[in-house]
């Protein structure tokens, strides 16, 4: 295992036997543990706090003391990136960016060359050379099955090493006022601001008497930086699913479905992907052609590498051939497996001419966006930072919608809930489970509560660059000590799922594969098992029941302020 390797490489053997506790010898005392969490995340923050309370309630049983360190997200990330060792465990989560529907992004995050004090974000400062090699490998495997295999192996190392202690799945909660909107069918993903697929799939319709769907949006989703210059991937959900259709798209079961493309074919070596386009028109009535596809993705790639568009992450040497009007072929010198799983499903096709006319090529970050796409909705009104009005567009080959939508920005969940209950909104998204519950209580049948799960779980990230997070047994103990069911109960009213396998992908994720994963805990807490894990590894407790390291344990995986040397791992 990863941590096992650490122990052998650090000299001063003895602790490997793990029997110290028996002869009553104790190592250094485990200090008060600092749990850091992001205090500015809204509903997730509530869960972070909940998680810490959850551990706190058994802290004395484990012989540890816990201190909390709320931090803003930016600060917390910086602290990890610089390997600042003033907290031991970070309680936070990976955001459900659409790009993460391919495992590459998160695998890369945990690779060894991002660990240590180099300003790069390896959330646990996880350092495992073997894992990192596999991560590098999978990124260029063109054959899907082969890649799946390598990813699986990497995940298995990761899972075994447990750099992440998962707790529960990230729930999504939305509500529809059934007096105003007809109920919808939603997949496992539910309905959320980053994932409107359920809405477009169902072709959501208003009830008679109302003619517009009113939905809320969190503040960051509606700024004048719209697609293609969007500020972060979160908001891409809005564009790709509603207004700017890509070639294919993840649906509300996190499966790829064709949109503008009929189908696609990946060459054996994975360097070519060929799309057959369907008949579709842009909002201005022009047909979607291979030329538009070529221009769109080559342009996005170019801009990304020029540092302008922050999110596109398309391969640098991407070329797109317009084989004919309805066939486009993506070519990369090396296999680029994430193209079809991560990037292309997130970026809609743009009509070349209107955008070139608008001056996007000369001035890619500051031009008058004509706001034309091929999505099922057309932007009819756009009020910067306030609201956006969408009208149905009937040229989309995949989704047929009929009702206009207006989305309004709301800053807090309570405000959304109040507005919803007050009849000011017909759809409320990004609710907390609690809010969903309240709406159900107060509105009964007139509200449809849509529960779903994002594809990433919540959890804790012990800092593995130093003790105690560097010891697997400690992480294991933490995993045993957390009461997943309790969390699910208090935070999600039982609407979520406990995650007992170590993974950064939850069951909803298209790449979730239990056969590679290690089960690291139980649904309810098991303090005994936690203590056992520690004492098995030579940890012990003094008279006052305070936890001590094994005698002579080395307490740093690498010195603070440095980066780990892959040779040592």
């Amino acid at each position, binding site marked *: 295992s990863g941590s096992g390797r650490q122990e052998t490489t650090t000299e001063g053997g003895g602790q490997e036997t793990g029997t110290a506790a028996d002869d009553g010898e104790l190592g250094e005392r485990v200090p008060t543990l600092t749990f850091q969490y992001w*205090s*500015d995340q809204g509903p997730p*923050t*509530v869960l972070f*706090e*909940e998680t*810490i*309370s959850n551990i*706190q*309630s058994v802290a004395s049983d484990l012989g540890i003391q816990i201190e*909390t*360190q*709320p*931090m*803003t997200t*930016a*600060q917390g990330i910086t602290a990890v990136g610089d390997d600042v060792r003033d907290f031991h465990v970070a309680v936070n989560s990976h955001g459900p960016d659409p790009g993460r529907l391919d495992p590459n992004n998160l695998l890369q995050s945990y690779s060894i060359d991002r660990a240590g004090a180099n300003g790069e974000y390896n959330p646990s400062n996880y350092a495992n050379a073997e894992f990192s090699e596999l991560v590098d490998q999978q990124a260029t495997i063109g054959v899907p099955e082969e890649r799946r295999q390598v990813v699986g192996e990497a995940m298995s190392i990761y899972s075994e090493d447990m750099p992440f202690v998962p707790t529960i799945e990230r729930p999504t909660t939305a509500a529809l006022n059934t007096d105003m909107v007809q109920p919808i069918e939603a997949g496992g993903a539910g309905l959320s601001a980053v994932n409107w697929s359920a809405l477009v799939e169902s072709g959501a319709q208003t009830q008679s008497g109302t003619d517009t769907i009113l939905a809320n949006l969190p503040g960051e989703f509606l700024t004048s930086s719209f697609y293609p210059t969007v500020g972060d991937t979160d908001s891409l959900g809005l564009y790709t699913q509603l207004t700017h259709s890509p070639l294919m798209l993840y649906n509300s079961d996190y499966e790829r479905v064709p949109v503008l493309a009929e189908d696609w074919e990946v060459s054996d070596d994975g360097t070519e992907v060929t799309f057959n386009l369907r008949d579709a028109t842009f909002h201005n009535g022009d047909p979607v052609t291979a030329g538009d596809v070529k221009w769109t993705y080559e342009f996005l790639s170019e801009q990304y590498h020029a540092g302008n568009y922050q999110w596109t992450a398309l391969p640098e040497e991407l070329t797109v051939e317009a084989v004919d009007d309805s066939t486009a072929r993506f070519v990369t010198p090396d296999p680029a497996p994430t193209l079809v799983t991560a990037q292309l499903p997130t970026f809609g096709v743009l009509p070349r001419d209107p955008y070139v006319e608008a001056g996007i090529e000369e001035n890619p970050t500051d031009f008058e966006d004509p706001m034309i796409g091929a999505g099922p909705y057309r932007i009819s009104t756009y009020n910067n930072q306030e609201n956006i009005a969408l009208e149905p567009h009937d040229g989309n080959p995949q989704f047929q919608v009929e009702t206009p939508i207006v989305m309004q920005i709301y800053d807090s*969940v*309570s405000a959304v*809930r*109040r507005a919803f209950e007050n009849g000011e909104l017909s759809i409320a998204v990004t609710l*907390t489970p*609690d*809010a969903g519950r*309240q709406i159900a209580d*107060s509105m009964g049948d007139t509200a449809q509560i849509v529960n779903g799960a994002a594809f990433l779980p919540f959890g804790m990230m012990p800092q593995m660059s130093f003790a105690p997070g560097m010891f697997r047994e400690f992480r294991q103990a933490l995993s045993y000590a957390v009461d997943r069911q309790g969390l699910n*109960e*208090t935070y999600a009213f039982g609407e979520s799922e406990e995650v007992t396998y170590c993974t950064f992908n939850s069951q909803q994720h298209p790449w979730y594969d239990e056969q590679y994963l290690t089960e690291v805990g139980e649904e309810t807490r098991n303090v005994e098992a936690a203590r056992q894990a520690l004492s098995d590894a030579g940890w012990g407790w003094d008279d006052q029941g305070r936890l001590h390291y094994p005698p002579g344990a080395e307490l740093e995986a690498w010195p603070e302020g440095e980066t780990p040397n892959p040779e040592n791992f």
Partner: protein
Amino acid sequence: MSVAERVRAYRDSDFAIIARRTLRNLLSERITRFAFGVLLVVLILGVVGPMIAPYPYNEQQTTASGELMRYEPPSLEHPLGTNDRGEDVLSRLLIGARTTLITGLLAGGLMMTVGLSVGMTAGYVGGKTESLLMRLVDFMYGIPFIPFAIVLITFFGAGFYTTIAILGLVLWRFIARVIRSQVLQIKQRPYIMAARASGASTPWIMRKHILPNIANMAGLFFAMGVGLAILEQAGLSFIGVTDPFTPTWGIMIRNANQAGRVADAWWWSFPPGIMIALTVLSLYLLGRGYEGGGDDEVVV
């Protein structure tokens, strides 16, 4: 000296006489008597609250069958009901009295210390020092408090005591202003001149003459400062940048709001809200103390 003598000596000292007189003045009005009463109760709660709390403040209450008792309305068992996590609200309110009080007193004390030092120095020393310090105060006034506090909190972390320090280190501005103008007035008084003419040094005059003469006003502003600190702390809690594991009253409101239950779980949000309002009101009323206690300066 025997204890009795010492007590008597103290009782006869100028300080004690003045303190008694001030107290009597304050107690002579019904409004301030009421304020005193409230504060006394809060103070007592702050001291004994944690001891009389019926449950541990962070214990999740469950029914006999092991079910979590969340959002229980008030009952005999839980006079103020339970919150989203099934914790006893009364117990948290009682614990909150102490933490809120500590926040207020420490932050108020800090404000007082900084405000007093700056105000006194500016007022007494005058000249360049004064304009420099007063520009600093202007500058402090130019700072929008809540956003700036968030900035500071990200510097120093959102600990309970850091928040207090930040409150104290930003909000002293109004005290400095008032104290300065007060000192400016006092320093013109002939008795200061007399002391100077007798050879008293600047520190002596500051300590023996100026300080005692602004003590009343300082005390009142301390009261207002405590109130202000409690309010602003609640505001910061509401935004969510303070340590939520220390259940101050502000945190309680914030949690209730975050759960979206301010109105329906009124037993959770209103008691801390009312306690804050009562405490702060009492402090304000006390701070207003005698007529025209410089209200116009207190724009924060």
